[in-house]
């Protein structure tokens, strides 16, 4: 009876979501500064029309944001024409802007006129390095051997990125690594790589005085920034959309670069920079509120716990029966350990991206606070340690005890519940503990799909090269892991039968 009550309570705790603020308009941005600033501008302008607006900041990649826009989980975000034509609609062979509009229309999406600046890709090098080898254009790269390229992971894959660039210029560098864009900057500064991809309106180009190599064969297309939004959203919130569209043709390249610089170099918040720009350019003023560090940490803690709670508890309830089955049937055991093991080998970001269409198809929320993608990924990652420890705990029970139970004629159910599970409980708990600590670490990845948590400040901190911000996520995450570890020591006292504890301590 007590056991049933505990299980019901766990289930309840697992499925009840934390109440979140309901917003009527959802703005999104990708995880680079310019996108976040533009997102903030959209938020300010939409709010000015009187709507309640949420901003899903720094989502993990173009695919994630675009899929969310298509499925209606996001209403509006800033995109680039080059990305749309060469990446998102690469299979359609789009000739011009009008055709692009038609394609978008078929998906229920609309695109604004250009905001006024072209943020294309380019290759950048440290000035000394470029000067010493007299590299001025991308073609010049072929004259120098032994160059090390560090390219953004997305750039490496995109059809308008590295593969085309390589064949257009016949580039054959010594070494090409796919890196996070912000990490690539660090590596460039440290001299670990020689060439990296940059976005032409990025502030760091000026700040580091990078040499931007001339695209002498005109490989890179235009990346005019545009506002991408849903048609149904435009109908429902016409005033908000009218306000946002005021930005069309109002942001010149220099202005965008200067906004980026204020955030990345001068450490002013994206919110403040966006507010200043909107006020100066459009005369629309807004209140900038900084909740302060403590409130931010509290918020990430709640988001983080939400991710852990709603993935770990179902994983426990699911994995223990799986572990029991795995212990009872050797064939099934091999199978289930194999399958749960495979989940562990899928890189977490890949798993998130893979899950998005699945989750969307199920009609669940794929991004934002409480996103099912993050929950399911964490759930899958948490299975293996629990299944494995349940199985090994049960199969590891002393054979003499198993035989005693057999000759005592204990019925199977009684034997499992009253003998085997209590004896395996130290191992099962250790599995849950491992899963919990892993889960807390993995949950930082929830930020990639806008689920918040400690990953959010870490992500922003990496992007802005702000160690304090990184620590704002990393320290609480480490503390939470330690506290979880400690909590499990207490739970062990309660959940492991006294006789088993006595036995293991007397050995």
């Amino acid at each position: 009876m007590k056991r049933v009550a505990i299980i019901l309570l766990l289930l309840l705790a697992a499925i009840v979501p934390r109440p979140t603020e309901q917003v009527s308009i959802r703005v999104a941005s990708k995880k680079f500064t310019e996108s976040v600033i533009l997102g903030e501008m959209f938020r300010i302008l939409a709010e000015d029309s009187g709507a309640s607006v949420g901003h899903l900041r720094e989502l993990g990649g173009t695919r994630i944001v675009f899929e969310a826009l298509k499925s209606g989980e996001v209403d509006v975000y800033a995109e680039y024409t080059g990305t749309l034509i060469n990446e998102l609609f690469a299979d359609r062979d789009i000739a011009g802007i009008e055709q692009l509009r038609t394609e978008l229309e078929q998906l229920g999406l609309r695109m604004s006129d250009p905001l006024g600046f072209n943020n294309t890709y380019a290759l950048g090098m440290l000035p000394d390095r470029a000067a010493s080898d007299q590299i001025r254009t991308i073609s010049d790269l072929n004259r120098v051997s032994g160059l090390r390229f560090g390219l953004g992971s997305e750039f490496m894959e995109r059809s308008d990125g590295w593969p085309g660039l390589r064949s257009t210029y016949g580039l054959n560098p010594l070494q090409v690594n796919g890196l996070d864009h912000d990490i690539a900057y660090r590596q460039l500064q440290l001299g670990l790589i020689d060439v990296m991809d940059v976005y032409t309106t990025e502030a760091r180009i000026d700040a580091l005085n990078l040499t931007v190599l001339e695209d002498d064969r005109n490989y890179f297309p235009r990346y005019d920034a545009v506002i991408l939004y849903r048609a149904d959203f435009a109908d429902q919130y016409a005033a908000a959309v009218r306000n946002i569209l005021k930005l069309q043709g109002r942001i010149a390249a220099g202005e965008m670069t200067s906004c980026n610089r204020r955030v990345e170099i001068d450490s002013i918040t994206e919110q403040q920079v966006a507010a200043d720009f909107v006020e100066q350019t459009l005369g629309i003023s807004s209140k900038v509120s900084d909740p302060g560090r403590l409130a931010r940490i509290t918020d990430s803690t709640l988001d983080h716990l939400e991710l852990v709670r709603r993935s770990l508890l179902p994983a426990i309830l699911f994995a223990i029966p799986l572990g029991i089955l795995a212990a009872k049937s050797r064939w099934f055991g091999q199978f289930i350990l194999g399958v749960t093991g495979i989940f562990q080998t899928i890189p977490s970001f890949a798993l998130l991206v893979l899950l998005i269409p699945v989750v969307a198809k199920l009609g669940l929320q794929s991004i934002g606070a409480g996103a099912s993608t993050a929950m399911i990924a964490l759930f899958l990652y948490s299975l293996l340690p629990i299944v494995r420890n349940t199985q090994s705990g049960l199969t590891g029970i002393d054979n003499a005890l198993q035989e005693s139970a057999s000759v005592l004629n204990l019925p199977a159910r009684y034997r499992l519940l009253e003998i085997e599970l209590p004896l395996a409980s130290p191992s099962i708990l250790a599995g849950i503990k491992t899963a919990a600590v892993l889960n807390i670490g993995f949950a930082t990845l929830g930020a990639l799909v806008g689920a918040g948590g400690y990953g959010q400040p870490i992500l922003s901190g990496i992007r802005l090269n702000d160690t304090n911000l990184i620590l704002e996520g990393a320290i609480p995450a480490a503390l939470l892991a330690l506290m979880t570890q400690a909590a499990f020591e207490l739970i062990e006292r309660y959940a492991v039968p006294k006789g088993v504890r006595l036995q293991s301590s007397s050995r």
Partner: protein
Amino acid sequence: MVELEGIIRRYDDLLALDDVSLSVGKASTVVLAGPSGCGKSTLLRVIAGLVQPDSGRVTVGGIELTPSTRTRIRDLLGYVIQDGGLFPHLTARDNVIIRARLLQWTADRTEARLLELSELTHFPVDALDRFPAQLSGGQRQRVGIMRALMTDPQVLLLDEPLGALDPIIRRDLQDDLKEIFSRLEKSVILVTHDLHEAEWFADRIILMRAGRIEQEGTAAELAEHPGSEFVSRFVRAQRTADFGSVLR
């Protein structure tokens, strides 16, 4: 009470039991003795239904042991192994009464039987609420015996029940066990590698070697009329500093 006919059990290349037949009557104590690996424990485990013979017949209380009768036959058995085989998460009391609880005995009946058994096995009543890890080796063994006897089975199977004990406690328990066996009038099959212990308990000793019964008889018969070179060597090897034994 227990009949074995032509039991054969093979593990890969090893013939663990090679055509063993044996009959144990009511209220008699038979000891299976022999060097390690001779098959004596395997034979006991065949009777308990823990090892399935490749061929041969096992009958307990007139019922032939098959997968479908195994549960019924186990109801007739008490099984004691080295160190008691107690469940470490249950107190001595809960270990002993586990069967009675499943059979839904009344609390009074359970308690009465528990007291009777603790008296019989000389187990202190105030130690009943301790966990196995809090008991001495001898006490654990006594709890194991109580558990086996709780529902008053007709057959008692003991596999090296005193193997893990130091000599003094072992001596005490040997005395107590012998008294229990004679008072309860059960069919007892006890496995030991120690011929002195075998002599102490047994009406009849079955000396085994390499999966076969080498010779059976009383200790005196084995000592005085060894049927083979192996028997006389085994008997001689056990002639240690023991007093008053026919084995000397």
